[in-house]
Structures are given as C-alpha cells and as structure tokens.
C-alpha cells in the first residue's frame, strides 16, 4: 500500500468495470460449451455426407431392392418411366450421354487447362500472370445456368454454321461448355501442384543447361504428376456432376450418341427434368433417386481417387 494518490487509484484500477473485461470474462466462461460446439461442427462434414447418402438411399431403397432389374437398368437403352403399357427403366443411353459429354469435354479441357497452368506458373510473369488469373476466376464464377444460356444462344448457332450440323444442341455443344467450366478447376489445382514443386528442382535442371520447356516436361511434370492427375480428376468430377448447363445444351434426347453432333441426355439432366413430375413414392420417383445414388457413388469414387493420388505425393517426396 502506498500513499501516492496515483498509485492508490491504480490499485483500484484493476477492480474497475469495463466492457472489454466483461467480454473477456464471458468468453472464458463460454469456453466449455464453445469447445463442445467446435467439436460438433467438426463432425458436421461427415454428418452431412452421410446424411446425403442416407436420405438419397432411403428414397431409392424400395426400388433398388425391389422390382428394379439391375441388369436391365444398366444395359437397356429403353427409358420409358411413365409408359402406360409397362414402365421400362434402362439408363444405358443416359450413361452413354454422360460418358460422351464428360470424355469429350476432358479432351478439350485437360490440354488447355494443364497448358494454361504451366504457362501461368512457369512462362509468364507480372501483368500477364495477373490478367490470366483474373480471367480464370471470371470463368469460375459464371453460374451454370448462364453457361447453359451461352451454349444455346452463342455456341449452338456457331456449331450449325461451322459444321453444318442438323441441330446446334448436341454433345459437342455441351462438351465445349463443360470444358470452359472445368478448366478453372484444373488450372487452379494444377497451378498449386506446380508451385509445390521445390525451386531446387528447377534450379538444378537449369544449371545443367535445360531450357524452360525442358524443365517443364522433363522435371516438373514427373514431379507434380500426382497433383496434376488430381487436378484432372477434380475436373472430371465437376463435369460429371454438372446439371443445368447440360440440361440446356445437350438437346436432351434419349439416344446413344454416335457422333459429336448427335444430341444426348445425361443422368443429371434426367433427374432435374423428371423429378417434379414423379409422384412421391412411386416407381419413377424412386428410380430417379437410384440414379442419384449412382451419381453420388461415381463422384465419391472420383474424389476418393483424387484424394489418394494427392496423398501419394506426401509419401513420395521426402526432401
């Protein structure tokens, strides 16, 4: 205890009420419930993934284990779910449509995406790099229904003019649009994995006399191989799961496409266009949920593979 007035005041100072002290006391008191909340939220991702699978599977189950002939389901082209004679649920044409559109879009997107990733990370600098990155972000931000709109009004007439196709909405149209949609994913993940290759690799190669192109294709591609593969897989996942753009751009025809200029129909678009009509609990409704299960399984596998492939990097690189 001192007799200095200022000191006495400061002795009392720590007992003063202040907002920030109350706030901190509240924060401390909330520690236990907050930590519990944090743990619960941490489990939320698993919870939701399981929930999605559970709810979709639940609606699909009666048909899946009931009267749906799985062999016919996967191998028949006849998709007549609301037939007055006898409903037929064959998704072969839909699988072919999804496959054709995905594969063709990847043929466009992978070279361009990887090429752009390499260009951005290795060959250009400064303003060009910034501009390109902005363009890629713009591409990524455009919503899916707008892409569908672009496909119908811009790409469709272009296709008719340049290839003399009979109709402008077809596999080619949807593939071009899907390629433009998947490229940002491939570029950003690809660029990240190229950046992750240590500079020492590049420096060693250059000191041995390699040109920039040789550094890229002899050193970086093998080193970043896993990340690039993951980038491609994620692009594939995006293409498979896309709904609105393909609904508008493929022509929505139940038919196995024999050429790029044929219209087709994808699994996702089928669900989107038919779910509203299906009466809840009926066969058609449940079969659409079965298709949902198939889609979920496929994208799950693709993402799992991408994740394992990326983990492979940690296993291999030990510098």
């Amino acid at each position: 205890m001192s007799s200095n007035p200022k000191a006495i005041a400061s002795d009392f100072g720590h007992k003063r009420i202040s907002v920030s002290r109350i706030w901190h006391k509240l924060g401390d008191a909330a520690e236990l419930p907050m930590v519990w909340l944090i743990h619960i939220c941490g489990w939320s991702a698993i919870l939701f993934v399981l929930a999605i699978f559970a709810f979709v599977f639940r609606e699909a189950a009666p048909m899946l284990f009931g009267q749906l002939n799985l062999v016919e389901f996967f191998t028949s082209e006849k998709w007549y779910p609301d037939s007055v004679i006898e409903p037929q649920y064959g998704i072969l044409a839909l699988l072919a449509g999804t496959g054709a559109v995905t594969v063709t879009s990847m043929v466009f997107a992978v070279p361009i995406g990887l090429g752009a990733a390499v260009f951005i990370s290795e060959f250009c600098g400064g303003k060009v790099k910034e501009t390109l990155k902005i363009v890629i972000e713009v591409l990524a931000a455009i919503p899916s229904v707008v892409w569908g709109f672009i496909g119908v009004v811009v790409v469709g007439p272009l296709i008719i003019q340049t290839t003399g196709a009979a109709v402008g909405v077809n596999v080619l149209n949807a593939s071009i649009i899907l390629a433009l949609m998947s490229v940002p994913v491939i570029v950003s993940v690809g660029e990240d994995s190229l950046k992750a290759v240590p500079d020492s690799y590049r420096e060693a190669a250059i000191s041995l006399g390699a040109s920039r192109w040789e550094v890229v294709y002899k050193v970086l591609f093998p080193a970043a191989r896993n990340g690039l593969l993951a980038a491609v897989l994620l692009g594939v996942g995006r293409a498979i799961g896309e709904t609105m753009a393909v609904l508008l751009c493929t022509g929505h025809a139940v038919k196995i496409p024999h050429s790029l200029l044929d219209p087709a129909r994808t699994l996702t678009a089928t669900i989107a266009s038919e779910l509203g009509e299906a009466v809840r609990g009926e066969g058609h409704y449940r079969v659409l949920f079965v298709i949902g299960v198939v889609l979920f399984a496929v994208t799950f596998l693709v993402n799992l593979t991408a994740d394992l492939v990326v983990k492979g990097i940690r296993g291999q690189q030990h510098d």
Partner: protein
Amino acid sequence: MIETKKKDPRQSNPDVRRYIVCPSASGEGQGAMERTFASIETALAAISRENEVANAADDSNTGGEATLALDLIDKLEEADGQRNKPRYRFFYDTHLMGSDGDGTERDPWPDLPSAVAGMTELHQSGRLALDPGDSILLSRRQIFTSTSLERRRKIKEAIAQYVFMAMSLSLVVPVVAILAYLTYKAWPVLSWDFLTLNPQSRMTAGGIWAPLIGTFFLVLISLLMAAPIGVLAGVYLNEYARDNWYTRIINLAVVNLAGVPSIVHALFGVGAFVLAARCGESLLAASCTLAVMTLPVIITSTREALAAVPMSFREACWNMGASRWQTIRTIVLPNSISGILTGIILQVSRAAGETAPILFTGAAFYLKVADKGWESFFPYGLDDRVMALSMHLYTLMTQVNNVPDEIVYGTAVVLIGLVLAVNSFAIVLRVYLRSRKKW
C-alpha cells in the same frame, strides 16, 4: 580485270569473306571480284598468305570475319546476283587446347593454317568435290555460337512457349468475346429501372426486382446458417484435430461434400428438408439446401486462413498460460479474419448462381411481389416459395413466350455482374485486410 565498284551482292554479308573460284577466268583478279582464283588450291594458298600477313601485323586474332567462303562458279558474268549453296562446312577454333581435329563442328581444327592444310588435303584426295554453284564455308567456331543442337532446342522452346500461350489465349478470347456479346445484346435494357421494377406483362417486360430480392434472401439465410458451422468446423480441423485416421476421414468427407453434384444436393434437400423436416417447398428448405452446398468450401478456406497464422503466435499465448480456446478467440481468429471473410463472400456468388438445388426445394415461377414500399423489401416469409434470379433466367429461356431478347440477355448479364461484383469485393477486402496486417 576492270575494277567495278558496283556492290557485289555476295559481299553484302560483312561477316562472310568470299573467295570466288572461277577456273575459266584468267589470273588473280582484284577489285570487286578481287578474290577470283583459278582453282581451289590457289584460293587456299591465298587464304594462308593473307592469314600470315594478318598475324604478322598484329597478334590479336579476334578481329576479322568469322566465316570464309569459297564459291565455285562457271562464268564470271553469272557471278552477280547468284548465291552459292554451301555444300561443305568446316570449323576451326583457336581456343581449343588440342592440336588435332577434322574440321567438323564437334572437333574443329585448331587454327587457320591447319584448316587450310586439312582442306587442301581433302581436295587433293578428291573428297572435296565441288560443282559450279556450290561453296565451301570455313567458320571460326566461337564459344557462344549456337550449334545446330542448340538451335533446335531453342526452336523447340519457342514452339512450346507459343503453344502454351495459345492454350491460355484460347481461354481468354472466348470469355471476353462471350461477355462482350452478352453485354451488347443486353444493353438496351440495362438500367436502374430494370433492377428495381418487378416483372410485368406476364414477364415480357419490366424488371427483375422480385427474383433479385429473392436471391438476396436465399443467399443471406443460407450463409447465416453455413458460415458459423463452417468456420467452427475449420477451427476444429486446424486447431483441435489430431493427425489420426479419424481426422483423415473428416478431411475426406469435406472433399467429397465439395464434389457432390448439385442435383444430388437437390435430392437431399427434397428428402431431408422438404419431406422429413416438413418445411415444404419454402425459402427455408431452399436456404438449408444451399447452406449444405456451400459448407465445404467455407470449411476449407477457414482452415487455410487459420493455417496462415504463424505458430509462434499461438505458442506465445500458451506460454502465458492461455487456454486453447482463449488463444483462438483472442489471437488466431482475429488475425485470420480476412481469409475467413473472403471464403464466405466467395460462396455468396456460388449460392446466388446455383439453380438445381432450389429447383425442387423452393423456387417459384411467378410470385406477386409488392412494387414499392416496405413490403417490396421483405416480400418472402420463411415458408413462402421464392423467385430467384437463376431460376428466372431458366424460366425466361424455356417457358415465357414472346419475351424480348434483351430481357433474357439482361437477366443473364445482371446475374454474371452480381457474381463478379461480389467476387471482386471479396478480393478487394482481402487485399485491404492483408495490408493492415502487421506481420
């Protein structure tokens, strides 16, 4: 020989010193055609002599032309305007250590006299056959002259660079062209009125206020639900989770949740919110579905933002006796707020643009919304269906008859513009907050 001072086209390349060998000409000429010789041997002999003279004059051997050319021609008169084709190419390099060589690029002669001697020997043994119109080149190989190997590599490098540039441009050009075209077609209708008026005359005129406000509420409510859960989940994953198989599964779940197709989200929304939770088709159900869709990206970006805070900050706190939660609350979260906010705002644009998840969970074709006043800002209750901008575009494209093109393009442009504006805001915010960081 009369010296003509006209410019000999052959002499135009100053780096090449030409020796004309013309057997039919008489004598050793001077002048423009000065180095005209009767045979290759005489030409070579002349080269040697000149070299000795030059060497005697000054010791430095670095000047002079790099290449000597012996051109064989038929007639002097045809010499003008003709370019002989190099048939043989020899090299000598005075920097070499060795004393041997055979004149090739890889193994040059060590100096000019030995080069001349080697060429003479080749000529005498008959291995140097020349026809009129051919020429022999003798070059000094400099250290930094590009070899043909190097030239090939340089070409490959240039090709590679142009190919990659072309690939990148093939992205830029379509995007810019498409955006320009859309804006051009939408131009007549873009105005403040377009944004603030409701659709009129069966949606063939007027504006997009009702869908716009609907999208606003959808995004707001879905983010109000997703952001807290996502941020706390990110906190868990970065601060509390240990590196075991359990955490790995959570990470896997986040990645998978991010990759679920949007239509499967819609199926989930119908199954869980519309049916099981009995929300019916409503703003609430649609927002919940959108929340689940935007959750994984918020988790990931929060995690990255938290990871960017240096460990030393946390360690300093722990050293002073703070608990984990106190550290997070007072130091880690405030310092990572920029990254977290950016992640959340970027999801705004995604939630605004998606159509499939709201298609069956709450979007409507047409709703009457008040045109002005308080009502027009809060037109939707939680259990009402809503109009949304993305759905509106789809409706205009497929179902509304006789709608002028500008309105459809206008809706698309507004949607893109909204998304881009929000994204730009997020980036600007991130840059601003980063600049205020003290570390």
